[in-house]
């Protein structure tokens, strides 16, 4: 037996899960390079951390996708963030750095400059 409040709570919790099955373009796209180069440089844990963090914070408008080789294998793991027409490329990512990107960039819209490709070059 569930109360009306409990049913509404289920709806809130579950709707995050189902938001992924929406074909409409999310406003933020997070792309992780998951080619052989990316995986061997440690992209898997980065991807997993991003997924957990995005879910934990109920970020409904964020789509997390993987992609193939981006081309600059020496800077992998690479994470690209697309907001509108703006693209930010983060390089040499780690799970710890990924947490900061979610917190600063995805939530607070502050680019984490020190992780970007510009800073690395």
């Amino acid at each position, binding site marked *: 037996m569930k109360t009306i409040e409990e049913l509404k709570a289920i709806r809130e919790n579950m709707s995050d899960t*189902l938001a992924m099955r929406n074909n409409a373009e999310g406003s933020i796209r997070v792309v992780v390079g998951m080619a052989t180069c990316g995986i061997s440089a440690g992209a898997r844990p980065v991807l*997993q951390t991003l997924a957990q963090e995005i879910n934990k914070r109920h970020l409904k408008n964020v789509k997390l996708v993987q992609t193939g080789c981006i081309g600059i294998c020496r800077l992998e793991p690479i994470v690209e963030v697309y907001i509108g027409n703006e693209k930010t490329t983060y390089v040499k990512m780690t799970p710890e750095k990924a947490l900061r990107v979610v917190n600063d960039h995805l939530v607070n819209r502050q680019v984490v400059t020190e992780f970007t490709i510009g800073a690395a070059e």
Partner: protein
Amino acid sequence: MFRSHVLICGGTGCTSFKSMDIREEMEKKLKEYDLEQEVKVVTTGCFGLCERGPVMVIYPEGAFYSRVQVDDVDEIVSEHLLKGRVVERLLYHELRDEEGNARSLEDTRFYAKQHRLALRNCGVINPESIDEYIATDGYMALIKALTEMTPQEVIDEISKSGLRGRGGAGFPTGKKWQFAANSVGDQKYACCNADEGDPGAFMDRSIMEGDPHAIIEAMVIAGYAIGASQGYIYVRAEYPIAVERLKIAIGQAREYGLLGNNILGTKFCFDLDIRLGAGAFVCGEETALMVSIEGNRGEPRPRPPFPAVKGLFGKPTILNNVETYANVAQIILKGADWFRSLGTERCPGTKVFALGGKITNTGLVEVPMGTTLREIVEEIGGGVPNHKNFKAAQTGGPSGGCIPASLIDIPIEYETLIEIGSMMGSGGLIVMDEDTCMVDIAKFFMEFVVDESCGKCAPCRIGTKRILQLLEKITEGKATMDDLDLLEELCHHVQESSLCGLGQTAPNPVLSTLRHFRDEYIAHIVDKRCPAGVCKALLTFEINPHFCRGCTLCARNCPAEAISGKPKEPHVIDQSKCVQCGLCMQQCRFHAVVKR
């Protein structure tokens, strides 16, 4: 936490193409690649594009894979799920435009003109999870109805929405509910007609398989509106997946207190049970259906009294079709005006059609009322395959009629279809090309009706049999023009004097083909010729001596030993021995066998 969802169609079409084996393999491979914590595998209801089954959709990319085989799973997991590279060769071809650019699923020809209302959750949620249903606003309409609306307000909202029975007759649902609400009785029933029997129709089946909670929620709302405390879903036993998912859904709803006593803590009590039908077509007729629920032989009884006054066990009862119920919760939640904004003035809302026959995209489509047949056949359906011409579409199964090519621009509504001698029916839409003989089609449906007539009233029991005999006579080339008049007269008699809807509508396929394709009947009778080349008794197979190389293949394969000739010389068919099986024509590599 999952970063990706793999949706595998668990509808009947894809399941029979072994989609559950694909699921099993998928889970195995995910474990192998250590992705099981990241990727969620979900079995869903029908996506509609059964032609391309088994179907798999992977989110967040929204990649729609069609005709997936068990052997493809490894590639999907290692390429797409691990490395994020979409497996192009399995991707539904419409997802790429001519230049190879990505196109979203909503923009493909199959989905672009569709508006999925009754099917909104099919192919989106796991039908065996009540939580996923709740996540898509499930049971919110029930909360609204029970806590904010009086039963009369619920009925008024449904009446205002203009929702009409999707089972085929198009009776206003609100009116039906009002009648039952006004009837006095210590016990009332809200029932669901899920005895979908038209050959080629599978929309109710798909809704039950893909979104069973939508039916349950709507039935509880209906029970509240009319004052019923018990409901029955009458579903045919031939739908094992639908029955199974309904059972699971009812169990979950009971557990959550959405069925049973004091629903959501209110005073309202309502429970549901499933009754299995043995598959008789007549049990889809409302009075026969109720007799069958009572445990008796399914035979109709005269109306009035109507079920709303004296129905199941002699108590006031409403009986609505599955698809009708599938619209109810959304009308309550979003309001009658929202519903009226879809479809046409006379027929608001949408209609689900089961597209079948000679059509590229066989499957399930849902379009706003008033969509033209051309849009359904040519755009959504992808047209007639093999460069053949569209000849007619049959709607309403054995109770309906055909729409000829000349009327392809007709907007589909209850009234317009009746005006041209067809009817909406439950929504089977069978497309026919130039190779279809209209007399043969009429005969096919009449054979079905003869089998399914319950035998209670004479016009249907005897009349349909006689109609069939006349049709057989025509297709064998033994009929005269007098027989045609007799056929027409008989059809009108059966129509006017049968007891229930089955008999009253049984002559429709004959009458509508007579109306639109009379010349074909006459060709059979006068010229002893079947223009489409279907009716065997009227066919002759001949060998064109100019093309025949004397390879002897036809002679060796002829079951009647009707073909003779020396090797390397033209062969001849002995017409007195020929059984018109057409095997020689199939076998011939030189197109030397011709059919007349």
